């Protein structure tokens, strides 16, 4: 891969910094992403249940990555709409870890503050805050904080649902905490330091 990059740069087909975006995303993705192997067949977009609402189909997004269009890629709503159904992943002839690449792009967009709508990043962050405080998810805290901020108008229509969830004891009002929270906190603290240096 690096050798091919050099050749393309020498031939004037691409600038080095452009090509490095594809490489950067690939390196930041868990597992071996196979992103460089994309043949632009479009099977991913054709398999996607929410493609019609995406700014760019995954295929198009991967072409933009290759073209080094950093800002456009990180501003795209595509990764935020991905529902992680893995239809594209099992159908991709090149075995690109598409859903995991989407996770990587979300993380990069958050760090670069380049998302357009904060609903999804806020939801993820709130969820993570709860997990980092208690070690378990805390649905009541998550739902109330999230809906008050992002969907206040949806709340009246949700009263019967929320009420049903509570009376059927499917949603606890108080959080549950794991026993060794200090251990988890230490692990996550170290993991965050490692994330910065990798």
């Amino acid at each position, binding site marked *: 891969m690096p050798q091919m990059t050099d050749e393309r740069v020498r031939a004037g087909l691409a600038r080095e910094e452009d090509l490095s975006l594809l490489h950067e995303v690939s390196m930041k993705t*868990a*597992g*071996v992403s196979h992103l460089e192997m994309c043949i632009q067949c479009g099977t991913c977009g054709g398999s996607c*249940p929410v493609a019609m*609402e995406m700014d760019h189909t995954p295929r198009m997004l991967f072409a933009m990555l290759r073209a080094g269009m950093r800002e456009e890629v990180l501003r795209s709503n595509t*990764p*935020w*709409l991905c*529902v*992680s*159904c*893995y*239809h594209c*992943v*099992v159908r991709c002839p090149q075995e690109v870890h598409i859903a995991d690449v989407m*996770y990587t792009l*979300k*993380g990069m967009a*958050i760090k670069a503050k380049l998302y357009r709508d904060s*609903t*999804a990043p806020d*939801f*993820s*962050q709130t*969820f*993570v805050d709860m*997990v980092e405080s208690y*070690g378990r*998810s805390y*649905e009541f805290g998550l*739902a109330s904080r999230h809906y008050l901020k*992002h969907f206040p108008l949806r709340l009246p*229509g*949700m*009263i*019967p*649902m929320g*009420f*049903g*969830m509570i009376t*059927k*004891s*499917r*949603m*606890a009002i108080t959080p*549950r905490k*794991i*026993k060794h929270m200090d*251990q*988890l906190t*230490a*692990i*996550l*603290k*170290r*993991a*965050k330091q*490692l*994330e910065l240096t*990798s």
Partner: protein
Amino acid sequence: MNKYLLFPGCSMESSAKAYMESLNAIMGPLDLHFAEIDDWNCCGATEYLGINLIPAYSLIARNLALAAQQAKQMDGTRTVVAPCSACYLNLAKADYYMQERPSLGVKVNEALDAGGLQYEAGALDVRHLIDILVYDVGLETIRNAVMRPLTGLKVVPYMGCMLPRPDYQHRWSDHEHPTELDDLLRALGADVIDYPLTTSCCGGHMTQIGPETAFELIRRLVADADERGAYLMATVCPMCQMNIDAYQNEMNHFFGTEYHMPILFFTQLMGLAFGLAPDELGIGAELVSSRNALANIGVEVPVTQEPAAPRKKYEGLPMPPRLLKGQRREKEAVK
């Protein structure tokens, strides 16, 4: 019978309590034994992975490390069972990627080390509950435990996405049309309806961040099950159950439809077939009631007295209470 380590996951103690209750209830008849992983933590669902890579995988790996430690004290156990599809996928994913990309494994272990833990990727088998039931317990054993066949119960098997895909360890019969749930429901005597959408998405977290997108995905699943004449849907995942059950009402409002499609966990249907009572199986905890659906096969779900939604008494502006004429007189009379 083989002992397994259980990773229940957060939903099993809250929104999917009925799943846990029914799982506990069917373990006896099947002679199944689970040891819960001590002090397990949240798997991060689909949220943590989109924020930070190493912390997300370290969060998952703490569970694997704890499980591996516990497994050493249990003779011959190396299987972690997750009843939730999202937990199952995250645990399987961490185990697999730590092997596929050794540098990830090294970093995750460095983080775990800060908590005095270690995990050697590949040390455990991560499997979903239905995998254990169909392939370890076996359909024959399940068939033999049936006391009250679900004859005539028209049900669509809904597998969802995160169970059969991406399938790192090649555990399922197919990625898009797996038949494990069909086979299991048939073993219970149910009238299983062919359901092409069996692995279509329920919307996942979109009910929280893009409701209109989620409503359409829910509508497709519910409408198709309805058109095929299903009395109810059977699921293997707390997230799918939550989306289709708790958001069905909002979805109906959004589209102006009137669907009423109950969705139960497959373990609840197993319990019914094993002759257990609905209230031992958490039946009735669903928001879209399965009462009428189950009445079709002569199962009576006791009516739980549902408290009316609290209505705040209108008291106008905060003012001292006005004394009525009668009250004043009464007061005076007391004096």
